[in-house]
């Protein structure tokens, strides 16, 4: 480990920089004093304070992965229009915070000239939060950035506009570990392994420590087994939950599978408490193939959902409320998605998801 101590003490456990030092002066002044806000147009809103101060926010869509030069670009814009301040959102957007209304349009022009969209507010499709995918994760069942790029290109107008019945929150996770915790989104796309890890029996002993491989499995699905006279392991397919933990410690148990890895689509989740309780997204399509670079099957399925929603939902209804109103049978009917045995929950609490009534639209 290099010695970076050049006469100074090694710095540890200092936590983050104090946020107070990074708040624009108008925010410091009006901290906790905001009275209301209004959306002025797609991607632009104003917050009005008890002090009468007005703060304008311009929201800009971005990729999650960015270059250092991107960071310099946005810093330049912040210097020019925002006294050097800016913030990000949880959905990988940038927010420029302006105290001068007249700066809004010039800023937007420069942002757009750099190729970045303004939007993601109100009844729009928000930026898709996502995980790392093939770009940087060893258990991923799909790429993340690529699918998201393909989707946002396709549904760009919904980001820069506000013509959807209500906000639509989309999220992408590249495997069931769901680092993005996508499961409570209007539309959630999840990388799916369809098969348990392959046991490369002749290589297990050389590449892996068998006891720690067995211990890595959270559901006790990996068990010791001698194969062709060599110590190895076997995997209980019924137990395996496709987490990839065993592959993490044992490269001779690859979970990635070029033919069988793919994507599932879940719909109708939400996190906010408004009108209805928070709820998870529910399975719409169990499996679609990985078809890079544009994943047309995924695009098509999402388009089907978005268009059915746009046509069918009433103003202000989130996807979950729309489906709840029309009923799941009608959702499957109008989207044309097949309802299969996989849609019926057979996991731990599946019993709680059946229709224990005579309610049916006939």
């Amino acid at each position, binding site marked *: 480990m290099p010695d970076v101590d050049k006469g100074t003490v090694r710095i540890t456990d200092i936590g983050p920089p104090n946020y107070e030092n990074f708040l624009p002066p108008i925010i410091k002044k009006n*901290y906790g004093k905001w009275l209301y806000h209004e959306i002025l147009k797609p991607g632009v809103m104003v917050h009005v304070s008890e002090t009468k101060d007005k703060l304008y926010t311009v929201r800009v869509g971005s990729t999650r992965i960015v270059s250092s030069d991107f*960071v310099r670009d946005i810093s330049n814009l912040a210097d020019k229009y925002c006294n050097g301040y800016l913030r990000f959102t949880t959905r990988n957007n940038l927010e420029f915070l302006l105290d001068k209304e007249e700066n809004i349009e010039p800023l937007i022009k420069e942002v757009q000239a750099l190729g970045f969209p303004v939007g993601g507010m109100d009844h729009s499709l928000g930026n898709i939060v996502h995980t790392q995918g093939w770009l940087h994760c060893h258990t991923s069942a799909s790429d993340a950035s690529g699918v998201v790029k393909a989707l946002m290109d396709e549904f760009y107008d919904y980001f820069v506009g506000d013509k959807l019945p209500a906000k639509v929150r989309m999220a992408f996770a590249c495997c069931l570990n769901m680092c993005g915790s996508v499961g409570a989104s209007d539309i959630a796309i999840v990388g799916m392994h369809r098969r348990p890890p392959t046991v490369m029996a002749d290589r297990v002993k050389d590449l892996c420590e068998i006891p720690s491989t067995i211990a890595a499995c959270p559901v006790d699905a990996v068990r010791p087994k001698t194969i062709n006279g060599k110590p190895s392991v076997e995997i209980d397919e019924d137990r395996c939950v496709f987490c990839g933990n065993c592959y993490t410690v044992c490269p001779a148990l690859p979970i990635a599978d070029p033919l069988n890895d793919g994507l599932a689509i879940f719909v109708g989740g939400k996190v906010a408490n408004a009108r209805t309780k928070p709820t998870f997204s529910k399975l719409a399509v169990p499996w679609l193939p990985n078809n890079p670079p544009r994943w047309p099957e995924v695009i098509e399925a999402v388009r089907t959902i978005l268009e059915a929603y746009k046509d069918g939902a009433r103003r202000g209804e989130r996807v979950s409320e729309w489906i709840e109103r029309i009923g799941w049978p009608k959702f499957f009917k109008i989207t044309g998605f097949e309802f299969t045995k996989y849609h019926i929950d057979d996991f731990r609490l599946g019993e709680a998801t059946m229709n224990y009534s005579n309610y049916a639209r006939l």
Partner: protein
Amino acid sequence: MAGTKHKTPLLDDLKEGKWPSFVKELERAAQKSPRTDDLIGLLEKSYRDHIPHWKHGGMAGVKGYGAGIVGRFSDSPEDFPGTQEYHTARINQIEGFFYTSDVLRKLADICDEHAGGLFNFHGSTGDIQILGFKQKEAEELFQKCAQLGFDLGGSGSALRTPSCCVGPARCEWANYDTLHVTDNLTREFQNEMHRPTFNYKFKIKCAGCPNDCIASGARSDLSIVGVWKDNIRIDQDQVAEYAKKFDIKKYVVDKCPTHCMDYTDDKLTIDDSNCVKCMHCINSMPKALRPGLQKGAQIRIGAKVPMVQGPRLGFILVPFYDINKDKEEDYTFLKDLIQKIWDFWDEYGTSRERIGELIQRVGVGNFLEAIELEPLPEMVEHPRANPFIKFEEYLVADEEEESKEG
């Protein structure tokens, strides 16, 4: 863009289209960083093969920390030597994601000098992520960030970097200072973040109101959500203004989940005793309606992703508490509660068992007893329907009607 030495026909396609292209960002970084150029080649290989080309295969980290650095090793180092080690540093974000151009430029310089010139702004938990350094560069990268004021975040079986919504910095609905408490807890629990000793990860997120823009109720083991106790403040003049724009009965009153509102003769009334603080009416008419003045927070517990026992949302552990008063006392109540929860988890939890799974396994009632909270009907959707109660109290015949605690 010229510059990458690898042929990338599949990725090139993703440089087209209206939405910003991550491939262009990769290429911009690759112009300065050969290892990031190899990253592009490796990704193109994944696009061809339909599988990732990463493995674990080694450790990464900095002295004295067990967290904050996530190792990434390519499975194809011969073809893409720059990706042999291509690690990630989780850098604790500034609360509310507020930055200055000055600090961002300095982070960019560090990222170019000591890593692959690539960032995530931000990772799912909230950290800034700097990508693309080797183990031998980790310490210097870390200390450069530290000198700039940035510490590493959490990873592994540790407290993950707490995060919060924009809160009172730019939202009229913040019922408490989300930035302040997040900053305070982060400083308090530096050790729990940096030196993993938990059964598994533990996430804390702070949302200013039940709109929960930080998704705390779905993503954090401990979710703190601002709420008020008294009446929604109504400005009837502004209600009248909204009435000119849309049908208040249809879009607001009829959508109230407890039907506690009425709009008759141009006057909006709310039975606040029946209000569950869903935020819909306030969201719909921000100029007319405001949360009450007795502000505080709810605490929900146990949210997590599907692995292993299935996904969970958080359930209400504390329906209301005066977090604004607790702030004056350095969040003693909150920290004590968190400590009790961790103690219980430490004592009874098993490896890779999230707190929500543990609570379910031992029973909510037993968990509440251990952390010294009363069972409350607000915690449940409804009481039990099955009659399989394991009574702990019963009468013993010898001692003639004397009650025994089981």
